[in-house]
């Protein structure tokens, strides 16, 4: 099949999907459903990157002038699909963009139906020519008295593999801590400070001093000044391993002059931070990483199986100092 499709057209600028095959089967969509329902409010479209080993779901808008928060979810293929077939010319990687809500709705429909297998296939749009438009056919059979076959064809856009940016990384990690599950309570407090202008900023300040502290500072001139401090115990990673920062010392000496007890601060827009609420409320293991005056990352494991990773990256508003 591989050779048959490649054939004489290899010389021509190939349409990405002509050599593509995506065929997946699963018996349980719970993990996908759970993960997608946490991130569906963030953006309308999600980029899915299928490879034989893993599925990446990415919410990121690189073209945007303002740095918007990004979400990267990583699923190992074997943990969510029972049958995997991913073939493409580009290292067997298929990249497509799909409406997250439509995809999620189909997963929900499958969950409600009395059905065993859920199939995902990539289908060409008929008569689409060189267009990169295609369908993701999502199908399952419902067995009651008779069998009903459901097929949902969700339009997708196949992307070139270089479209996807790299996983955002913090230049260096100044502080890292584990957040307890009750931490979601802080979001309920922060929720109330919504401003129609949506330009509210929150400064997140973390420190290792006195067993560690994490603070959220907000201020609206002539109205209020707020400091929300996490009082319960925090598990803060005590000190970065020396060997790791050795090269960083050479390359970026001023950064590492920081004393480990010095508080780390990142200012982000309140709206961006609040979008993490669903993720923090539903994930099991939550690690929070900060880079002074640069960005912060919430890195979670979706459930007890610890196979699915969710990463929420918020870039900070840098203060001039």
């Amino acid at each position, binding site marked *: 099949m591989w050779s048959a499709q490649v054939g004489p057209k290899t010389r021509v600028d190939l349409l990405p999907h002509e050599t593509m095959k995506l065929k997946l089967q699963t018996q349980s969509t719970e993990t996908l459903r759970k993960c997608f329902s946490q991130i569906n409010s963030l953006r309308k479209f999600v980029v899915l990157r299928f490879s034989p080993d893993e599925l990446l779901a990415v919410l990121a808008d690189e073209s945007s002038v303002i740095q918007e928060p990004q979400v990267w979810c990583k699923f190992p293929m074997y943990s969510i699909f029972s049958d995997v077939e991913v073939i493409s010319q580009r290292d067997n990687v298929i990249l497509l963009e799909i409406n997250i809500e439509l995809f999620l709705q189909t997963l929900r429909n499958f969950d409600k139906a009395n059905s065993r297998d859920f199939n995902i296939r990539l289908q060409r749009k008929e008569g689409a020519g060189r267009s990169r438009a295609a369908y993701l056919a999502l199908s399952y059979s419902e067995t009651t008295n008779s069998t009903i076959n459901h097929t949902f064809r969700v339009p997708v856009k196949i992307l070139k593999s270089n479209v996807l940016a790299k996983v955002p990384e913090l230049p260096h990690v100044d502080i890292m801590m584990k957040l307890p599950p*009750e931490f979601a*309570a*802080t979001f*309920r*407090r922060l*929720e*109330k400070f919504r401003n129609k202008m949506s330009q509210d900023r929150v400064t997140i300040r973390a420190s290792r001093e006195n067993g560690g502290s994490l603070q959220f500072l907000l201020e609206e001139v*002539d*109205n*209020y*000044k*707020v*400091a*929300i*401090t*996490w*009082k*319960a115990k925090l598990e803060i990673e005590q000190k970065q391993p020396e060997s790791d920062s050795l090269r960083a010392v050479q390359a970026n000496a001023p950064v590492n002059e920081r004393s480990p007890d010095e508080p780390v601060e990142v200012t982000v827009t309140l709206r961006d931070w609040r979008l993490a609420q669903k993720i923090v*409320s*539903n994930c099991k293991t939550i690690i929070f990483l900060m880079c002074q005056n640069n960005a912060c990352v919430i890195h979670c494991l979706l459930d007890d199986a610890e196979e699915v990773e969710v990463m929420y990256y918020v870039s900070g508003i840098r203060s001039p100092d």
Partner: protein
Amino acid sequence: MSHLFVPSLPSSVPTSQLQRGLFAASTTHVAHLAEMFNALAAIDRYALITIGADGISVFTEHNHILNALANFEATLFSTYKFDFSSQSSVLLGVDILLLSELFAAAASTVVPKAKSTSGGPAQQPLVESVVCYLKYEDEGSPLIVEFEDQLIVERLEFSTFNLDLENPYSREAELEDLGGLIVNSAMLQFAVIIKSDIFHNLLQDIQVLDTEELYMFVSNVDDEDLLNFVSKSVLGYSKLIYPNAKSSLQKLEVYSESMEQIASSVVSVLNFQVFVKILRAVKQSVKCKLIKDSEGVISVQLLCKNVNCAGYPGTMVTFNMLEKTTMPTEATAAEIARAFDEGACEYIKEYTVLSGGAAPKPQLAIADVPNPSAPGLSYASFKKGDDQATETKRNEVQPNSESSSGSGGSLFQLFF
């Protein structure tokens, strides 16, 4: 002078600040305060807080036609310290809407989540209780509110404003005049005490009807206490009868001009859009007192108990509002009459000859809604005169309406 080693303990407040005065209080009844602030925020975004030695009162006003005052006694607070040597009370303006939301958010950590999203077992409350600390130093300084529970410490500094609001209940205002919108308890027309839960349901029903104008009918004619409401909406008219069992309608008194109890009836006209602003407070209350003075000021006093606080008599919320000045026109009265002129309704039409030789004026009568337990008829007369806004007179045996002789205005009578 170096301030390098100033200790950060709150106990070591510099002496200069102590001279400025200090108010400090703490309480665990955050949810109760949140509900009360929320009820007041329905009136207006900004409120005037008066802090005195024996408690806190919060006053807010809407367009000079509706105001509300909530009194929190010092017993609601586990500690209460008021130390202003020169003043008996301090005033500060705050954004009550923001305050109510933040109190609600702080209280929500204690309350278990309504429903777990994953459909799992009901979640335990995250923390057992939230303590709230309040602090205020002097004019210009922020109001400091601090919430503390096992998980979170939230410190809030609210800017305080100089509001163009005057609390008509404050003592200073009382000495000058009673110019503010406040019910005159020496000139009452009626006083009704009812249970709040039924009243709340009733108000909700009236709200669902998209009511524009609400007629409140109070009568104790023929030894029967009646509290009825007629809603006027785009849909038409509907009548709601408050149950008159003693347990729900605890007291109903109608007064004469000299404040003597009489058997009579009073009709009040209310702009429902304004009146409904009391709804949130009614929901929190256990008992409700409705009074109206002869100048058309209606007052709703609500007692909001806090079950969790033993020994606290409850927060008193008082609303004062102006009766709608436009009396129902004759056309309206006729409309109401038509609306109830169906089926078993009893239709009444009669003319009253005014004493003093005045020309007979037609009196539009309204049919009775089938209410077999209310055989008595009563007249609620409205006068357009300015001297006495409303006066009622029972007028059954002798139909010559003496009460209306003083005014040349048209008459409107409601028969319930």
